């Protein structure tokens, strides 16, 4: 999982203790939780919806719901599980809304750009593609994944969650999570192989 800030590392107060304090009315505890999670939630949602402004609005709405529904949180779950569940549900709602309004169209960017000719300046496989362009292509490939694969790939390979917690966040069986991660990774490989073809096989 994304590392917490240095200030937070120093603090021995767990997320669960903070939400408990907030449930008793300590607004400062809420602010601390916001500071701990705002950036990692933004990255999660941004990778999911592909638009920074929308992502930030969704994270705002997530924290607003945490504020309003603080008593809905039960100690049986980790706070991170709860807040990621809220953010994930809001992100999926946003995708459905876009689909309804036909704002969002599935990008064929990756397929169209398979013949993208990028100069191989340093003859290094790792630097075959300019990093910014490569990041953009990878992001488009993530967005092209079906949402059920997309969410597990982001949580597992970008955010670094354990399979068990992904299972709790998405409320699906552990085996389903692993299966979806595998299929998502294979799908990404299929869509991005043009970036890594003809590379030496020594890295395997």
């Amino acid at each position, binding site marked *: 999982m994304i590392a917490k800030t240095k200030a937070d590392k120093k603090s021995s107060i767990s997320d669960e203790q903070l939400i408990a304090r907030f449930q008793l009315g300590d607004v400062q505890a809420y602010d601390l939780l*916001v500071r701990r999670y*705002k950036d990692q939630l933004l*990255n999660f949602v941004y990778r999911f919806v592909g638009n920074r402004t929308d992502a930030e609005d969704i*994270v705002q709405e997530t924290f607003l719901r945490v504020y309003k529904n603080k008593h809905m949180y039960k100690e049986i779950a980790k706070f991170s599980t709860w807040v990621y569940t809220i953010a994930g549900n809001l992100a999926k709602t946003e995708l459905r809304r876009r689909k309804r309004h036909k704002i969002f169209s599935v990008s064929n960017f990756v397929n169209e750009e398979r013949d993208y000719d990028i100069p191989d300046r340093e003859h290094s496989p790792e630097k075959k593609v300019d990093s910014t362009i490569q990041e953009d292509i990878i992001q488009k490939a993530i967005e092209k994944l079906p949402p059920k694969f997309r969410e597990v790939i982001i949580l597992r390979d970008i955010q670094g969650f354990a399979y068990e917690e992904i299972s709790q966040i998405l409320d699906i069986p552990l085996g389903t999570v692993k299966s979806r991660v595998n299929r998502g990774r294979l799908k990404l490989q299929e869509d991005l192989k043009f970036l890594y073809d003809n590379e030496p096989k020594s890295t*395997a």
Partner: protein
Amino acid sequence: MPDCDKLKTSFSDFLDGEIPLEQRKQLEQHFSHCPYCHEIFRQMRIIQQSLKKLPHIRTTPDFEKRLHQQIFNSGAKNFLVPPILHSWKLPAMGSAIVLATVGLFLVLDNSSDQNNSTFRNVDSQLNTAAPQFPVNKSTPAQAAGSENSSTRIQSATPADSTLINTEGVQQVGNSK
């Protein structure tokens, strides 16, 4: 190869290092004679590393400010109020004290207005009755500084004090 599709289901576990030793050996053996699967697995590993290296974006600087505004606009209770004030008792007591103070002040102020003329009469009577200062024999410089009472008192000698108020100082002095 017939085994390829079946073995692909284990690629993720292999990548995560969560695969039984026997299954791992089976995959490695398969890779040694199946360049197709070997290449897929190699690319999956590179993509996984690339995903981890994707840049992290940060929320805008006013994120928390906007959030606070949203919470405030939503009418959420207790927002921006210190936790100590969240109970109804303390604010109620505070309000009662403030009201009592303001009420007392208004009552006193009202009564002082009514008695103002009386006080003025008493003042004038007291002024008339007050002992008259004797003619000051101090130098003009001392006279100019006489308004600054603290300086005057600090620098005054007993003799000077006698000059200021003969009756009062002498009474104090005599009492010693």
